[in-house]
């Protein structure tokens, strides 16, 4: 056996090259690629108006909170591995965090179960003061490297009094994030539940406050019927309104977003959420190592096959 005749055989060279190239695989060749990772904290409004059924799924009416939960659970699947998701709820005038961000792929089951368990009955108090809630949320996330995703329908209860507008300038632009408006444009009745969670029809006009009765009215006292500075600062007329019905208060949420340096997006379908979240502004550069051994193995396979071609 001599080597020399083999050196003239192209098959020998192909085989040797295939083996050499394949052996590169055992050094674990990797290419690194830029990946966009996200660190999101979802804060979900769980006030009663979020029970309003103005979304549709499979021809069935679906409550806003249910729709948000569905959209979130689908979004979990779309986020790239290595992204992190935290969850919190908002009611009354503040929000609370259930957990700090957890990695989505290893913690998928846990995050999914927690989202599925979101419920309006988690609320520890009943008001819905969204501006205060947003302020408390922004203060909470101020020093954390997290992107806020605040879901709300913008319906304050009792309705906000422009005279006592909250000043959000202290937290403006401190936190990146987006306010996601939830709900339809038409007024819809808000389902009412009793203490045991049984559904009891809808809220009626007399069930809800139609104006804030705190402090003084924002109107000129001369324009208020029956005004009395001490005894009737809001006048003698009973407040009327349509606060027992709910719609998405988009302009209010847009205004809150502008004042706090957040973006505003509307939740129309589950894709709209993905567009709102997976954007460059929220992405954190992460490096993903991609195994590139397939290139070497593929080349080896081609070389090997070439031996048999002719």
């Amino acid at each position, binding site marked *: 056996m001599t080597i020399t005749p083999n050196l003239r055989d192209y098959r020998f060279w192909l085989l040797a090259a295939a083996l050499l190239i394949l052996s590169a695989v055992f050094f674990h060749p990797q290419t690194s690629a830029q990946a966009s990772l996200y660190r999101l904290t979802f804060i979900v409004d769980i006030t009663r108006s979020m029970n309003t059924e103005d979304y549709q799924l499979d021809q069935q009416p679906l409550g806003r909170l249910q729709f948000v939960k569905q959209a979130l659970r689908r979004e979990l699947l779309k986020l790239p591995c290595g992204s992190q998701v935290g969850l919190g709820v908002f009611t009354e005038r503040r929000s609370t965090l259930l957990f700090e961000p957890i990695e989505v792929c290893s913690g998928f089951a846990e995050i999914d179960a927690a989202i599925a368990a979101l419920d309006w009955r988690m609320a520890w108090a009943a008001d819905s003061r969204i501006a205060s809630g947003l302020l408390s949320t922004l203060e909470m996330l101020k020093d954390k490297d997290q992107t806020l995703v605040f879901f709300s329908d913008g319906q304050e209860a009792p309705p906000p009094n422009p005279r006592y507008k909250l000043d959000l300038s202290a937290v403006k632009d401190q936190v990146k994030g987006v306010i996601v408006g939830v709900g339809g444009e038409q007024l819809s009745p808000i389902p009412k539940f009793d203490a045991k969670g049984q559904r009891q029809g809808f809220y009626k006009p007399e069930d809800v406050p139609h104006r804030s009765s705190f402090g003084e009215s924002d109107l000129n006292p001369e324009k208020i019927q029956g005004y009395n500075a001490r005894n009737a600062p809001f006048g003698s007329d009973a407040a009327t309104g349509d606060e027992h019905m709910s719609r998405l208060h988009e302009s209010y949420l847009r205004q809150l977003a502008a004042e706090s340096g957040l973006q505003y997006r509307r939740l129309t379908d589950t894709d709209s959420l993905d567009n709102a979240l997976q954007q460059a502004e929220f992405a954190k550069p992460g490096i993903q190592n991609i195994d590139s051994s397939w290139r070497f193995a593929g080349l080896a396979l081609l070389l*090997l096959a070439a031996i*048999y071609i002719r």
Partner: protein
Amino acid sequence: MNLGLEYPWVLAGLLLCLLPIFRLGAVANPYPWQAILPPDPLSQAISGLIRLLGVLAIGGLTLGLAGAYLQEQQVERIGHGAHIVMLLDRSNSMDNTFAGKAPDAQGEESKANAARRLLNQFVDHRQHDLIGVAEYSTSPLFVLPLTENKAAIHAAIDATALPALAYTNVSKGLSMALEFFDSRPVTGSRIVLLVSDGAAVIDPDSEAALRELFKQRQVSLYWVFLRTANSPGLFEIPDDPRDDNAQAMPERYLHLFFNSLHIPYKAYEAETPGALQQAVDDINRLENRPLHYFERIPKQDLSTRCYAFAAVMLLLLLGVKLCEARP
């Protein structure tokens, strides 16, 4: 054992395995008349073997390229551990120190802070436990299901660093904690670890419901009561018998109620962060009943092994090539 493929379509490359079967891949040497050669089983076997080497090499490469992997497996094991539900009080007063003051800068620790630090340590010590987290204030908050994902549990415990919520509604919190054990096999210890700094009166309706739930679920209860200095303790009997009622001393009455449940129950009065440690140690020591659990073996990549196999085949082929007869 379950095989899976990352890119099943690559398997179409297996068609290439036909190549070595129909072609030898060697130099054809001219021979005057083949029919004159006697049939030689050994040669035929060797020729078949060489073709097989080619098939195996191509097959190995293709499988590797298709990203063969072993699916995530669950291996049943028996160890020592428990299913633990941490039920954390998120009422306002948890933000105060053990002395009942708002914590100031001189290294004083709020009750919530002390609890958080110890619970995090506790989680790290319990290797095989499934731990779930629930919180309660005016209403119960579901946080995490029973899970072995320690990072997630830490994330939930850390989130309690934020200011607490409203009131203390312990009965609803307890019912939620007990629901965690629904549809879970009874194996190992089942523990509800209640961490609170106060109690509230439990109304008779929920009292009856809780009695039943505790019985059915076979749960043992550990109550870490973060007592504020000078507040009535669990074991204190008031001097004035008129004060001995649930409204005046809800903690004592909750303790009596837990005692009357006839379940394994232990209460700890932690007046200092050190006493909380005691409770955690006790659980570590006592609650180690044999536990059936499933250990998750993550998905294993097999492609490197396929490549290694193919490389060996290639090496053999190269050896064969070197032995080739040259005219």
